[in-house]
């Protein structure tokens, strides 16, 4: 399988108010247009529902990593204290379960947090030094953006996208073209 060629031609619709933006998304999706990317400066409540995204499975990953930590901590301490080098600490049992609870808890949290953050970084393409495509610098400042892929689309279709954005309260609609490998 060859790499899928990335599209370089986009239309950008920019909004300045998140409620207008959410309504616009509903209307645009209702008209059957495909939204390529959605960019906002902060988490907008209800955005994933408006876009029809399914729920993230990150918390499941967090649970699985946490369970790994629990199992590892309990089994390692059991092996050390009861099998590998049993020592008598003031007549305490060789398998003092209550004493294991603090470390088991800490390792559960440690594994869950690290595992989840690493999963998060991988799934979100967050790697130090990775240079992302910036469609519009103001999307991390004060603009809510919808990006439409127009590669191979007719002038008529492009016009439809633009008029829908304008008709739904966009403050700016423009073309954005990237060079290959940008």
């Amino acid at each position, binding site marked *: 399988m060859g790499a899928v060629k990335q599209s370089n031609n986009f239309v950008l619709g920019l909004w300045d108010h998140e409620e207008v933006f959410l309504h616009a998304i509903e209307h645009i999706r209702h008209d059957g247009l495909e939204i390529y990317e959605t960019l906002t400066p902060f988490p907008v*409540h209800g955005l994933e529902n408006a876009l029809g995204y399914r729920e993230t499975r990150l918390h499941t990953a967090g649970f699985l990593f946490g369970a790994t930590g629990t199992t590892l901590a309990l089994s390692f301490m059991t092996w*050390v204290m009861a099998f590998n080098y049993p020592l008598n600490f003031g007549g305490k049992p060789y398998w003092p379960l209550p004493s294991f609870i603090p470390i088991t808890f800490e390792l559960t949290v440690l594994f869950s947090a690290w595992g989840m953050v690493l999963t998060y970084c991988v799934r979100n393409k967050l790697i130090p030094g990775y240079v*992302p495509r910036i469609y519009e610098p103001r999307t991390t400042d004060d603009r809510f953006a919808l990006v439409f892929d127009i590669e191979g689309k007719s002038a008529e279709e492009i016009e439809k996208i633009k008029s829908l954005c304008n008709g739904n309260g966009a403050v700016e609609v423009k073309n954005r073209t990237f060079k290959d490998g940008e």
Partner: protein
Amino acid sequence: MHAYESDFREPLINGNKNYTIITDELVAPTEKTYTGWWLLLIIFGALAGLFIFALSWTVFFGIGVWGLNKTVDWAWDITNFVWWIGIGHAGTLISAILLLFRQRFRTGINRAAEAMTIFAVICAGMFPVFHMGRVWNAFFIFPYPNTRGPLWVNFNSPLLWDVFAISTYFSVSLLFWYSGLMPDFATIRDRSKGKTRKMIYNILSFGWTGTAKQWQRFESLSLILAGLSTPLVLSVHTIVSFDFATSVIPGWHTTIFPPYFVAGAIFSGFAMVETLMLIVRKVFKLEDYITVNHIESMNKIIVLTGSIVGIAYITELFIAWYSGYMYEQFAFYNRALGKYWWAYFMMMSCNVISPQAYWFKPFRRNLWVTFVLSIFVNIGMWFERFVIIVTSLADDFLVSSWAYFQPSWVDISIFIGSIGLFMTLFLLFCRFFPVIAIAEVKSVFRTSSATAKAERAKQEGLASGGFVGHTTFGILDKDAK
């Protein structure tokens, strides 16, 4: 779409704002140079140098250069350790527990408080490591396969639990803090002019762009990290208190320690947040984002936790008397009226009596009172740990070995130096990182800002209603001046 907030609630963002202004004002501290900042950096940097010098002295000559003696074998080192760890707790409380409780006022202060947590834990970690003496063998505390048997660490020991608790706490706090920082670094990147600056902030932002899917995962991540950090922060100070509570020493061996230590930690942490934020909001002109309302909310937590700590002190005294156990009774009698009475007096007056001022609203909303009391609380909480640790050890079971602890210049230099290290890190943070969580502040803008409330009042035709006008335009708030 938005849950409209009652107009009776004070706004969390004052002044006439929009998203553009918020970005400009919150990024500004990273884009300018401040003479005062350089001055402070030089002073605290020098103190951090003193810290390194005094620690090197300790490592070179051994723990004997501290004021410890055969009876008092834990003193300022562990006092400082517990003090710094306690200070760190407010950061996690603000970012995690207040997130779970949906307290929106956290958005203005969480970033700086989390940074404070991380720097405080760095300072705290130094003390147990260096008090080991042969610091080059510090890795012995980790369970690793070794050639001595292998002889493993003792999983029954609270000191070992502490190793796991503190290191987990540090690394999870770091993850929580940094995952929130990425979007804000992207904001700085996208408005920076210079190529190098853009590149550096891009690396720091991990290439964040703010797509809807990224934000969806971001919200899930912060919620779960908050859910994990909440029991974590409670467990950390519980385990720190176990270091004492499981030792069979009168004055330490009490079951009240875990909740008492946790309340004390939150108490001292909020005080430190206030000390820092009162200066930061003034220097970087962030009064609209860290409002008097924020300060008042923190003061309410201070009076609550301060009173819990007060009740714990009195409960300890009562239980000591009620136990009928001579040594326990002596430990507490000696603590309050013995040779360290002055430390006990400092503790009681700073921690229990001084915060009671916050029952009165004018004090809660007065910035000078808050600043002075926050320092009192910091002093009082340091003395609390000193009282618990040193008075319990100094007069032990054998009268012939009773001793008095006096710090050496090395003890004092390490303590003052650790404040220097903390402040140096905090100053660097203030200058190069966004001090206020930009994206999070924007997310409460539509519900809780003065601007949004005024707009809503106008739409509802209530603008002329005196009360609404008064509370919505937070600018009228006279206490802020």
